[in-house]
Structure formats: C-alpha cells, structure tokens
C-alpha cells in the first residue's frame, strides 16, 4: 500500500478555476481502486499560496507526491516541486502529463527535484509505479513509459508504454476528491451560450482520445498515438511528435454506454445540470465510428432521462431545467446538419469550432481539412440546429499576409463574428515547435525554459513564427482587424512592401514552405 498525495498545479491564473483536472481525477480513482491511500490537494482550485502548500506537504509521510498538467502549468510545477523536495526530502516525486511528455529530457533537467517522469499515457504506468513503491522497488527503467535518473544523474528513458485500448475498463473519475461545492460549482458558468451561462453545477467528461487531423499548431499530449520514440544521433532515446511528413495517430473512444452511464452517475451523485465534453474533437470521433458514436450517445442520453426537460416536452426554453445540457468541440468539414440536430435535441448548447482563419491558403497549409466554404457552411448548419458555434480565430500563421488578414475580416463582417484572435503559438509537441524550435530558442536568447515559462493563453506573443510579420506588426495588425480598419491596413501594406523591396506585380509575401527549411529534433 502506497500513500500518495496528488497536487494539481496552478493554471490560467488570470481566470477563476473552472475544470477539475480529469487526468488526475482518473489516476486518483485508479489508485484507490488498487488499494492505495490517496489524498488530493487541488492547488489550482484553492489558490492559497506557499503557506498552505507547506502545510499540506507536511500533513503526512507521503510515499509519493504526484503532479502533472498541461505545458502552461510549468511555472507552478517548478515552484511546487521545489517546496515538495524541501518539506518531504525522502518522498518520491512523480511528474506526468503534457508538460513533461513534450520535452521529457529538458523537463528532468530543469526540475532536478523530480525522481520519475511519466511520459504520455499514465493509466498503466502510474499504478505500476505505486505498486512497485509499495514493494520497496525503485527500479524505474524497468517500468515502461518512464524517465528517471541513473547513476551520476544520467537520464534513463525506458521503452514506450502502450496505450490502453479497453478504455471502458477505467473507473469513473474521483470527482469527490476535488472542491466541487467550494470552488468548481460556483464557477460552472461558461459564457458561450445561454445554457452555458445559466449552468450552476457543471462537470467535464472526456469521452475519447485522439484526433485524426494534423493541424500544425496542435499537440495531443502523447496520448493520441502522436508520439514516437526515436534514437538521436548520440544514441539516446527521445520522443518525437508531428513533423513535416511524419504523422501518427491512434483513435480511441469510450462506448456510448460508458459515456452516458458516467453522465448519469454525475447527475445522480452530484446533481449536475451541465457537462463540458473535453474531447479534442467530437466530430473526428463520430467520423471514425462511421457515424454511429455520436448518434448513439444522443439516443442513450434521452433513454436515460438526461435530455433537458423543455427539449423533451417541446416547450419554450426555460432558465432552469432537469436533465443535462452539454457542449463540446466540432469540426467544420466533418459535421453534418443531421447530427447537429440530433445533438441539439439531446441538449447540446454550444460547439467550439477551430475555424482559425478564413484564408484559403492559410487553411490549406494548416492540415485541418477545412476551407472557408466549410467554415461558413458549418457555421450556419450549427445555428440552424439551435446550437451556438464558437468560432476561434488565430493571427500570425507562418504564411499570414495582408490578403489572409482581409479574408478573415471579410468573413467576420459577413457572419457577425466578434472575436479577438489568438496569436499563432508553437507549443512544444506541435509541428510548429518541431519546425521553428531553433528560431524560438533564438527569440529567447537560447533559453528554451524562458519560452516555456512565458507560455499562456496565446493571447500574447511568446514567439513569432510568421514569415512576413514581426511581433510589433502582428500586434498592430490585430488591433486594426478588431477596429475593422481596412484603410490603415492597406496603407501599411504599401509601407511594408517598400521596406521589404517587393517589386510591383509580386504578391505581398516572403513565405517559404517550412518543410524546405531545416527541421530540428528528429
């Protein structure tokens, strides 16, 4: 029996905490199922600072302090492991999640306090670590999917861990170990739809793993078949993700029965009225299942009494309901009017669409399989179905130019989209990161950790990957886009062309295909 303390690090500090960390909630449930002693400290939910953290770390003799999260939690993780090592000198510190997975060797170097890193999926690796510790065994290189320190501090990566295929064998997440009443339920609101705004008791469910698309900006946490183990020139094992010409994926989803049973459990036990589906993309799953998955979830939703009451009764929308409203992520090309209507009728309130841009050349190079036409089509289909589409936009693509900016502005005006675009950001694990790593490091004086510490919402510029524009230009252009100021954008194009010495008759771009540039990391 192993005594484990999970710590959920801080993330997106500029907003209130809104999401129970699903991965940690599942790992805690697995650890309890396996008979271990488990406590969770949700530092992100409580946000109490160092004093509380020290008290928690000193509350027992922990065998393991385990933490993990997304890459942008790195700053908080760095702080937590330093304090954990100080307060619990003998405890094994385990780090997992997307933050470690994209840069395992770098992370272990930057965080000397961490004993074991779990690379990629932890459903099998983490319980094996707990079992071994319970038996007094610390031979980490024998545990697949880990990175640990050998003699002299040399990093040892064990072979890759296979993904879990029988997802339905997972227990339900241990939501009860998180401050639901104290923190999460009061922050249930999601301002993307009327029903989202009215949500008072929301939980999230992740019903599938993976995404068949190859968007250049995306990272799939190494849990989507997107990660490969490769040997570097020095003979050392490392991980590799999407890079030009090399993409791998494994698509996995829970059965509709598991998904709806879990929703019903959340409804009965926690009295929820809203669920946010965390899935990378509900539509790529639906497509992979030959269009049966989503439809079956909707059917079972109704059969199990989860359809919101006024939709069931065909009456006017009300401000409160029995049943559960829900939301998720869709795809411009892969959605159909039929499935959108089914989803609405089962209670779907809004769907996030990564439209990203309305420029044909940008979308073509993005690998998303969408076009301005399918963006616009899906927008109207979704509205017609009674669901609000949430149209995400990005500026600063490698091939962004004046025309692509005008294309997007035109579509916003026609569709009534009000949006402040994200800046194209090369998060570690994405193809952009693989392609532009050298330039990113250069932009941070050769210090990659500095870049990782700066990463946040992509609402500020952390590294420029646009071939045409620098940070000052991107900030200015985004501002002019928001102000719908085409005149000044045209005016600046003339200045820009003159300064780049582009002859008349040539397009306003300096873009070169990155696959022709040096690719770092593989």
């Amino acid at each position, binding site marked *: 029996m192993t005594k484990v303390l999970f710590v959920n690090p801080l993330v997106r500090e500029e907003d209130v905490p809104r999401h129970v960390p699903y991965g940690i909630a599942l790992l805690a449930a697995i650890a309890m199922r396996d008979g271990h002693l488990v406590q969770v400290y949700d530092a992100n939910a409580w946000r109490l600072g160092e004093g509380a953290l020290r008290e*928690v770390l000193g509350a027992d003799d922990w065998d393991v302090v385990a933490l993990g999260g997304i890459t942008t939690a790195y700053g908080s993780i760095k702080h937590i492991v330093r304090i954990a090592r100080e307060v619990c000198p003998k405890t094994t510190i385990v780090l997992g999640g997307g933050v470690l997975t994209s840069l395992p060797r770098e992370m272990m170097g930057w965080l000397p306090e961490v004993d074991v890193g779990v690379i990629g999926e932890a459903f099998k690796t983490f319980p094996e670590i707990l079992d071994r510790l319970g038996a007094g065994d610390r031979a980490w290189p024998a545990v697949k999917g880990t990175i640990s320190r050998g003699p002299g501090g040399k990093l040892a990566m064990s072979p890759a861990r296979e993904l879990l295929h029988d997802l339905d064998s997972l227990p339900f997440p241990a939501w009860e170990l998180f*401050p639901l009443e104290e923190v999460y339920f009061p922050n249930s609101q999601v301002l993307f739809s009327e029903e989202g705004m009215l949500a008072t008791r929301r939980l999230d469910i992740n019903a599938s793993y993976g995404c068949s698309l190859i968007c250049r900006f995306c990272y799939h946490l190494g849990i989507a078949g997107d990660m490969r183990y490769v040997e570097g020139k020095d003979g050392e094992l490392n991980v590799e993700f999407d890079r030009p010409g090399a993409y791998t994926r494994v698509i996995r989803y829970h059965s509709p029965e598991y998904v709806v049973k879990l929703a019903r459990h959340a409804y009965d036990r926690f009295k929820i009225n809203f669920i946010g589906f965390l899935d990378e993309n509900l539509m790529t799953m639906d497509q992979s299942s030959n269009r049966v998955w989503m439809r079956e979830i909707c059917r079972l939703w109704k059969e199990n009494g989860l359809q919101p009451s006024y939709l069931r009764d065909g009456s006017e929308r009300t401000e409160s309901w029995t049943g559960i409203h829900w939301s998720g992520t869709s795809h411009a090309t892969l959605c159909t009017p039929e499935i959108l209507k089914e989803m609405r009728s089962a209670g779907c309130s809004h769907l996030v669409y990564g439209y990203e841009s309305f420029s044909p050349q940008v979308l073509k190079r993005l690998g998303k399989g969408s076009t301005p036409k399918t963006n616009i089509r899906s927008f109207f289909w979704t509205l017609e179905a009674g669901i609000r589409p949430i149209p995400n936009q990005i500026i600063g693509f490698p091939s962004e130019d004046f025309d692509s900016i005008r294309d997007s502005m035109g579509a916003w005006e026609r569709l009534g989209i009000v949006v402040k675009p994200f800046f194209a950001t090369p998060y570690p694990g994405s193809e952009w990161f693989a392609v532009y790593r050298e330039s990113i490091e250069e932009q941070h004086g050769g210090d990659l950790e500095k870049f990782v510490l700066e990463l946040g919402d992509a609402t500020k510029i952390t590294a420029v990957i646009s071939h045409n524009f620098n940070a000052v230009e991107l900030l200015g252009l985004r501002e002019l886009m928001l102000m719908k100021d085409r005149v000044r954008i045209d005016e600046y194009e003339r200045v820009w062309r003159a300064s780049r010495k582009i002859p008349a008759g040539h397009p306003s771009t300096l873009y070169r295909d990155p696959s022709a540039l040096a690719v770092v990391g593989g």
Partner: protein
Amino acid sequence: MSKLLKGNFEPKKPVNAPAPTPETLEGRFEREAMKRLGGSIAYVSKKKVMWDLKKKD
C-alpha cells in the same frame, strides 16, 4: 469547515481551508478598473508603486 485535502483516509495532521477573506475595497476597485482599462480609464496599482521622493544625485 472545508478540508484542503480530500481522500480515502485521514491524514496525520488535518489541514482545513482558511475562512475565505472578503475582497478588500481596494482589490475590488483595481479588478473592476482593469476590466475597463483604455482611453480615459487609467488607474494606479497601489501594490506596484515605488514611493521614493528622495533626491538622487
């Protein structure tokens, strides 16, 4: 009182969540002002002011 630690056993030392401290008027004002920043709306963040009127040579 809420427990900071939630789990399947009693830890040796219980850790309770401190009673929530109500937001100060100053904090509330700065938060509200931040939302409206721009144009004629500007404010001084009191936490960040360096008060030094001594003459430097």
